[in-house]
C-alpha cells in the first residue's frame, strides 16, 4: 500500500501519553501511602492484575489484537486511578470486583478504548460505593498511634483473609474522612470553625494527609499541563466552578458552609480535576465545551457534597457530565475558517 501523507511523525503514542500520566500520579501515590499505609499498593496491584487480565480476556473474545491494546497503557491507567479511589482497608474483592466491572461494563461493552461514554474508573467506584457502602467508607485514620498502625503483612492478611491483628478493631483504625465529618457535624448544628478545631483528623486546610495528597496531585497535574498531555481548560474550569459556588455560600454563611480552600484540598478534588475529569475519551473535546464541562463538574461536586447523600462527589459529578458530553460538543463547535459565527 502506498503511504498517505503526512510522511513524518513525531515520536508520540498513546503509550507515552499514558506513561506520562502515571509518572504524574507518583507523588500523590507516595503521599497517599505515607498517610494511609500500604493498603493502596495492595489494592493497586489487585486492580492492575485483574484489570489487565479482564482487558486481555475480552480482547481475546472479541478477536482483537491483545498485545497492542495491553501495551497502549490505557487499562493500566484506569486500574491505577480506580485503586486511588478505594479506602486502604478494603478487602481484596473490592478492587477485584470494581475493576472487572469497570472493564467489562464501562469499557468493552461499549466497544473498548475510545468508545466508552462513561469514565470506567468512576463507574467501578460508583458501583462499589452503592453496593458495598460499609467497605467503601472504612478509611484509615491518618494519625493512628504507631502501636496500632498496620504494616504491609498485617494489611495483606486483612485484605485477603479478613483478619485484623489481635486487639485491634475497625473502630480503633478507621475514622470519618474530613468531608464526611464536615457534612455530619454541620448537619448536627456545629459551626464550620468548631468542626475544624475539634474534630479529629481536621487540619488548617482540610484534613491531615488529605491536603498533602491534594497538593501532590495538583503538582502532578500542573506538570501534565506543562508537558501538554492535558489542556488546562477542564481542570481550571472545574476548580473555578467549585471555588465560585463554595465561595458564594461561604460568603453568605461561613458557619454552615466550608470554605473554598477546604473544598479544594479535601477528598479527591485535585485527583478529579487533573486526572479523572480530563480523561479524553469521556470528556468534552472542544475548547469551549471543556470549560462548560469542567465548570459543571465543579458545581455538581459542591451540590452533592453540600446537599447530596454522599460526602464526596467526584465520581457522580463526572458521570453525570459524561452523559452531557455529546450535547455539549454539538453546541460548542468552534467557528470554522471562512464561516460566520452564526452559521
Amino acid at each position, binding site marked *: 500500500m502506498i*503511504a498517505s*501523507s503526512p510522511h*513524518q511523525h513525531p515520536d508520540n503514542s*498513546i503509550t507515552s501519553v499514558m506513561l506520562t500520566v502515571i509518572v504524574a500520579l507518583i507523588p500523590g501515590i507516595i503521599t497517599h501511602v505515607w498517610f494511609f499505609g500500604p493498603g493502596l499498593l495492595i489494592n493497586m496491584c489487585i486492580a492492575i492484575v485483574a484489570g489487565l487480565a479482564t482487558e486481555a480476556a475480552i480482547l481475546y473474545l472479541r478477536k482483537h489484537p491483545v498485545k497492542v491494546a495491553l501495551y497502549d497503557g490505557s487499562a493500566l491507567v484506569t486500574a491505577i486511578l480506580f485503586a486511588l479511589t478505594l479506602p486502604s482497608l478494603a478487602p481484596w474483592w473490592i478492587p477485584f470486583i470494581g475493576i472487572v466491572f469497570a472493564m467489562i461494563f464501562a469499557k468493552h461493552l461499549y466497544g473498548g478504548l475510545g468508545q466508552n461514554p462513561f469514565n470506567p474508573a468512576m463507574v467501578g467506584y460508583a458501583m462499589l460505593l452503592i453496593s458495598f457502602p460499609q467497605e467503601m467508607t472504612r478509611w484509615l485514620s491518618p494519625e493512628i498511634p504507631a502501636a496500632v498502625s498496620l504494616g504491609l503483612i498485617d494489611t495483606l492478611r486483612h485484605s485477603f483473609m479478613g483478619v485484623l491483628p489481635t486487639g485491634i478493631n475497625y473502630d480503633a483504625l478507621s475514622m470519618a474522612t474530613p468531608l464526611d465529618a464536615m457534612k455530619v457535624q454541620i448537619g448536627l448544628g456545629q459551626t464550620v470553625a468548631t468542626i475544624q478545631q475539634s474534630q479529629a483528623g481536621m487540619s488548617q486546610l482540610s484534613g491531615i494527609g488529605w491536603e498533602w495528597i491534594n497538593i501532590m496531585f495538583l503538582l502532578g497535574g500542573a506538570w501534565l499541563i506543562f508537558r501538554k498531555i492535558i489542556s488546562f481548560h477542564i481542570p481550571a474550569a472545574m476548580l473555578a466552578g467549585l471555588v465560585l459556588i463554595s465561595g458564594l455560600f461561604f460568603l453568605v454563611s461561613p458557619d454552615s458552609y466550608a470554605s473554598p480552600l477546604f473544598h479544594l484540598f479535601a477528598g479527591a478534588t485535585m485527583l478529579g480535576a487533573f486526572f479523572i475529569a480530563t480523561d479524553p475519551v469521556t470528556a468534552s473535546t*472542544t475548547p469551549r465545551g471543556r470549560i462548560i464541562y469542567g465548570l459543571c463538574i465543579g458545581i455538581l461536586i459542591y451540590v452533592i457534597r453540600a446537599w447530596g447523600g454522599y460526602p464526596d462527589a467526584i465520581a457522580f459529578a463526572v458521570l453525570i457530565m459524561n452523559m452531557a458530553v455529546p450535547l455539549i460538543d454539538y453546541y460548542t463547535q*468552534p467557528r470554522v*475558517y*471562512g464561516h460566520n459565527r452564526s452559521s
Partner: protein
Amino acid sequence: MTNAVGRFHGGLHLEDHKACSMQSAIVAAPLPEQLIIPLLQHIGAPLEPLVKPGDHVFKGQLIADSDANLSAPVHAPSSGTISAIEERSIPHPSGRAEKCIVIETDGKDEWPGDRQTYKNYQSLSADQLRTIIRQAGIVGLGGAGFPSHIKLNPGQHQINTLILNGAECEPYISCDAMLMQERPRDIINGLKIIRQTVNARQCLIGIEDNKPAAIAALSNCLNDDEKQYIKIITVPTLYPSGGEKQLIKLLTNLEVPSRQHPVDVGVVCHNVGTAIAVADAVIEGIPLISRTMTITGGAVNKPANIQSLLGTPMRHLLTACGLDDHKLQRLIMGGPMMGFEISSMDTPVIKTTNCLLAMDKQETGEPQTALPCIRCGECAVVCPAQLLPQQLYWWAKARDFDKTQEYNLFDCIECGCCSYVCPSHIPLVHYYRFAKTAILEEERDRIKSDRARDRHDFRLLRLERKKQEDEERKRKKKELLKKVNDDKSDSKKSEIEAALERVKAKKQATRETEQSRDS
C-alpha cells in the same frame, strides 16, 4: 518590511530541514536522453497531442493543447524526436498511468528561431497578457498547478490585494527561498505583470521569518517607485502559513468565505515561482518548459536545488544529487506533510514538482499501527481551519457523509497537521480524502441520475403531449371527415341521382333508338 497583521488557528512548529539543500546555488540539471511529457499534469482537461511519433520538435514548440478553458498547453522542453505517445506512469497519488508524449532529445537543445518577446509589456492589455500566459502553459508552481490565466481573470471582482506566496512552509522544500535569493528582479517583474493583469491596488509578498536572505534580497531589489505599492511582509514560521487561505489571513486578516475563492474578498494569490514563469514568458518569450525544484532527503548525498526540464525522469535528477538506493525508504513528490509517494523512479517531473524528497529510514520512522481514537483533541488544537478532525474521522469512518459535510469536511485543506499530532497514529487525512472522493462521486452520480430522470420525465411529458396532440388531431380529422362525409353524402346523393338520371336517360335513349330501328 512589515509583520503579519492576522493569525490563523493552530498550526505546527516543524523542524525545517531546509539548510541542507541551500548550500549551493541553483544548478541546471544535465539534459536527459528522454523526456516524458504527461498530457495530464494538473487539474483541468487532458490535452490533445499536436505531434505524432517520428516528428521532430524544437525546444519550446507547442506539442499538446486543449480547447477547454481550464487547461494549459505543454511545450517540448528540448529539441528532439517524438518517439512515442503512450501510457507511462505519471506523478499522481494513485500512481496511475496516463498518455505521455515521449521525446528522444538530440542534445542540440535548439529553439525554432527568434522568440516573441514583450520587453515593454506595460503597453499590453490584460487580455493580451492572459493569452500570452496561457499560451506559455503556466500553472501555479506552488503545488496545486491550477492554470494561471484563470486565476488572472478576476472578472467582475475588484482586486484590492495581490499576494505573492513566498512562505514555503513545508519542511525540506527550499526552491522558492532560493529563487527569491537568486532571482528577485524576475520575481518583481512577474509580480508587476500579474498586477497589471488583475489591476491590483497593492502587492504583498509573504515570506516566513526563517528566510532572512530571501527577505533581504527582495527588499534590496525594490526601487522607490515599486516600494509605493509592493510590501514585503514576514510571517511567523508556522506550518501551514503557506496555505493560500492561511497566508491571506496572515497578510490581510481577511478570511476567504467557505466554498468561495480569494477573488471573492478581492485577493489574488500566486506563488513566487509562478511570478518568475510569468516574467520569463512575457519578457523573454520562454514557455514553461523547466522549473526549479528541491532534491533532498536523507537518501541523497548532495541535496540541492535544481533547475530541471519538465519531463525529466526522476531517477536522472536523484542520481545527479547522489541518491543512495540502499538508504531510500520512500520517494515523495512535494513535502513531507502534503506530498505523495512515487512508486517508480522512471516517473517524470512535471509542472507541479516542487520537491523530490528521498526519505531514509530515520525520516520515515517505523511503520505505526493505527489505534482507536481516544478523543484527546490534539487534532482540533492544531487544525488551521479550526475543524474538529476527530469528529470528521468518526463520521468518515462510519461513512455518514452527510454528517462529514455538516462538520465542514470541504473546509479541510489536507495539510496533515491532525495526522501528524495524532497519538493513535490514525491516518486522518486519508479518511478525509476518502470521504471527499465518495461525496464528489455521489454528487456526480446524483447529477447524472438527475439528468436521466429529467430526460425521462421530459420524455413522458413529450409522449403524453404527443398522445394528446394525436388524439386532438384524430378528433379534428374525424370531425372534418364527418363534416365532409355529411357534405359529401348530400352531394353524393345528388350525384347518384344525377347518375341514375343519366343512366335512365341513356336507357331511354337506347330504347328509343332500338324502337326506331325496329320500326
